[in-house]
């Protein structure tokens, strides 16, 4: 166990997870002091059979509920400002976000706008000079796979980037009934974002017991349930729900650490790739871990415990644990590859990256981050991920 030193941890998120979680919505809103919530979602979700049922359920609970279903696929400033007006004129006092990605980004910044009663949000961005204080009650209900930022401290609206633990939802309700089958690649992307965020929190360098606890649980749940969550078999809903809960926990861990190398490299790759940030992270993760295992201050071998359980962990000698971890991650990816009828991209070539693009990517990353921890390794990682170079597990 790594000893805690100077360390700050905050996860304002209460997680209610499981069967009939949504029946607790009125209680949780009341516990936050809210009486009149505005629910926002997207029209695409509204077309799925389950979502209108969810909304009806909330309406029937006797709580006055405002509904806005036109958030769209991307968070837009115009939408935030229109919603802020609606919120104020309608006398609402809390926000419920139902969905993923754009809905959650919009909800966070809507909350900022209505709490601060301002249209000028630029000073509150990561580059601005205003800090974000305590906001209004905000509840999130994940209902589809997203970009991995849902429960995090980060929000992006057009080209504005916000970061504050205050932006995180006060309560996240994870209910199996909310989920409908969806595009497998989208689901894998969301899960791989969460897995990467949890793994990078867990291996360090800023490892601490609080981050560990959220990350450990998220890793364990994703590794055990992701393949079933994709399968569409009998236990599908339970598995999908477990993955959604894990995505929430990974968001809590991620909000308390600096983004790791996989996250950053995937961002650089994502500028040129034909796939999402989450899928890029999935391609890069084993190569990054292989590299980190050669550095001090990273604990790649410790991943074996949440991934494989105590039995395997204890009987695997220390020097073989890293190899075992990398095997398990690759096996997981291969299982997903099979379950998507080989649609899942496994290499950077698969997502349209060419060899001559790698150097500029590594340079871009060096410009944007203090990548001295990772050094020369970045280009090597990208080169190996380009063609799916086999990892030497010994």
């Amino acid at each position, binding site marked *: *166990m790594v*000893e*805690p*030193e*100077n*360390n*700050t*941890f*905050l*996860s*304002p*998120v*209460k*997680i*209610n*997870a*499981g*069967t*009939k*979680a949504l029946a607790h919505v009125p*209680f949780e809103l*009341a*516990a*936050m*002091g809210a009486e009149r919530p505005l629910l926002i979602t997207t029209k695409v979700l509204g077309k799925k059979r389950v979502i209108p049922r969810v909304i009806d359920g909330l309406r029937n609970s006797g709580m006055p509920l405002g509904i806005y279903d036109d958030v769209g696929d991307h968070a837009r400033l115009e939408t935030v400002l229109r919603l802020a007006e609606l919120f104020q004129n309608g006398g609402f006092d809390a926000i419920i976000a139902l969905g993923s990605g754009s809905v959650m980004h919009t909800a966070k910044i809507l909350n900022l706008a209505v709490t601060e009663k301002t249209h000028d949000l630029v000073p509150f961005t990561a580059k601005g000079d205003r*800090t974000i*204080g*305590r906001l209004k009650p905000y509840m999130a209900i994940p209902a589809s796979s997203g970009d991995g930022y849902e429960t995090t401290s980060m929000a992006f609206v057009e080209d504005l980037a916000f970061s504050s633990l205050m932006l995180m939802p006060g309560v996240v309700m994870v209910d199996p009934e909310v989920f409908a089958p969806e595009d497998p690649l989208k689901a894998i992307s969301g899960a791989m974002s969460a897995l990467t965020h949890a793994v990078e929190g867990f291996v360090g360098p800023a490892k601490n*017991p*609080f981050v*560990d*606890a*959220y990350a*450990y*649980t998220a890793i*364990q*749940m994703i590794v*055990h*349930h992701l393949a079933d969550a994709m399968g569409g078999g009998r236990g599908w809903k*339970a598995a999908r729900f*477990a993955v959604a809960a894990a995505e929430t*926990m990974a968001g809590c861990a991620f909000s308390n650490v600096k983004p790791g190398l996989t996250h950053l490299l995937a961002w650089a790759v994502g500028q040129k790739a034909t796939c999402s940030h989450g899928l890029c992270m999935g391609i890069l993760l084993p190569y990054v871990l292989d590299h980190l295992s050669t550095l001090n201050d990273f604990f790649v071998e410790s991943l074996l415990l949440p991934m494989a359980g*105590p039995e395997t*962990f*204890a*009987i695997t000698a220390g020097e073989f644990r890293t190899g075992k971890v990398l095997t398990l991650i690759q096996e997981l990816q291969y299982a997903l590859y099979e379950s998507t009828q080989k649609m899942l991209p496994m290499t950077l070539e698969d997502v349209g990256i060419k060899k001559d693009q790698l150097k500029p990517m590594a340079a871009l990353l060096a410009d944007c981050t203090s990548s001295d921890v990772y050094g020369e390794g970045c280009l090597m990682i990208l080169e190996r991920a380009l063609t799916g170079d086999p990892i030497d597990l010994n």
Partner: protein
Amino acid sequence: MELPAYYEFCCRVKTISGHDVLEKIPEILGGLGARLPLIITDKGVLEAGLIDVVTSVMKDRVPCLRISGGSVESDVPPDSDLTVVNRLAGVYREKGCDAIIAVGGGSVLDTAKGVNIVVSENATDLMAFTGTGALKRPLKPLIAIPTTSGTGSEVTLVAVIADHEKRRKMFFTSYFLLPDVALLDSRMTLSLPPAITAATAMGALSHSVEAYTCLAKNPLSDAFARSAMELMRDNLFNVMDQPDDKGGRLSLAVAANLSGVAFSNAMAGMVHTLGHSVGAVCRVPHGTCMAILLPYGLEYNLHKNAQFTSELLLPLGGEQIFARTPKHHRAEKVISVIRDWNERLFHLTKNKHARCFKEVTDPEGNAMVPRDKLKDIALKAMGDGSIFYNPEELDVDDAMMVLIHAWEGTPLNRDLIRKG
């Protein structure tokens, strides 16, 4: 992996840990929009000089934040009291305070939470705010600075205030009661005497172990419990050997906090049921009761939850012992590891850390748990809320049986447990 059909988890307190985190108080107050805190503590903490540590960092860092402008109040009794709450609320208003800093253990924090309700809601009658859901909005900023590594009350959402005049206890439950910030600073626990270090650490261990092995567990409370146990395994005996081990002290404080999070999200079982009762009837400190009862609780429930108990061998015993012990012996090994810890602590504290109830004495050396009180203790235990989360149903006869063994210090005869 098995998952509960439904669970809730919340750990909303901002937790800052380190060797010099008290220095952040001015900045934290600023962030909370506060300038004049009321510091609430008790006599023991004041006499140990811990308040000086807290106030000096505030004076030095922000001149306008002179403590004379705020107030230090140190008359919190061991059992939080309504009259004290009301008086402190008066001080808060009179001095124009705008935040509360609680420095101490569970009763100080309970008192601070009570004061916070009174001053935030302008309440004249606290009774109106008892129960669940009575508080509707955030209270005034509250910073908690624990001075023992045991209760984890800095992360719990309940407060208990005794109304001695009307002979009743008032229970408050709300997320708004959670402190905004908990500061874990190694200086606050550095001077804890060995016997108290031992008892409070075992108290924290019992929070984690029961959270992990009782009925209301969930995957996140499990992870917090596991982390806490690892930290205790790696640090408790180092600190007992070297009380000025700052790193070890901090780790124990963090372990107690993690245990508090696990326990407040997963509840506890019969170790708490019986322990609360021994505390109430015989005034034995909480940690001491927990240390003695913990192996018995595991033994009693073994036929129900051996699976969970055996998993604890990894965090408590370490990889070697876990791998070396055959699967079906691990749960029993966990129980013997805990008994072994108690035994070692008994010797390291020169026999002050009691291994069984007949060894518990007050500062004057008088026995605190007379054998003839065990019946009262068993009867009183039946009314404790934690009994519902115990894996095996505990009736008064079995409670009595467990208490007799815990008094004598002999292992349970597991064949005699009434199995439901």
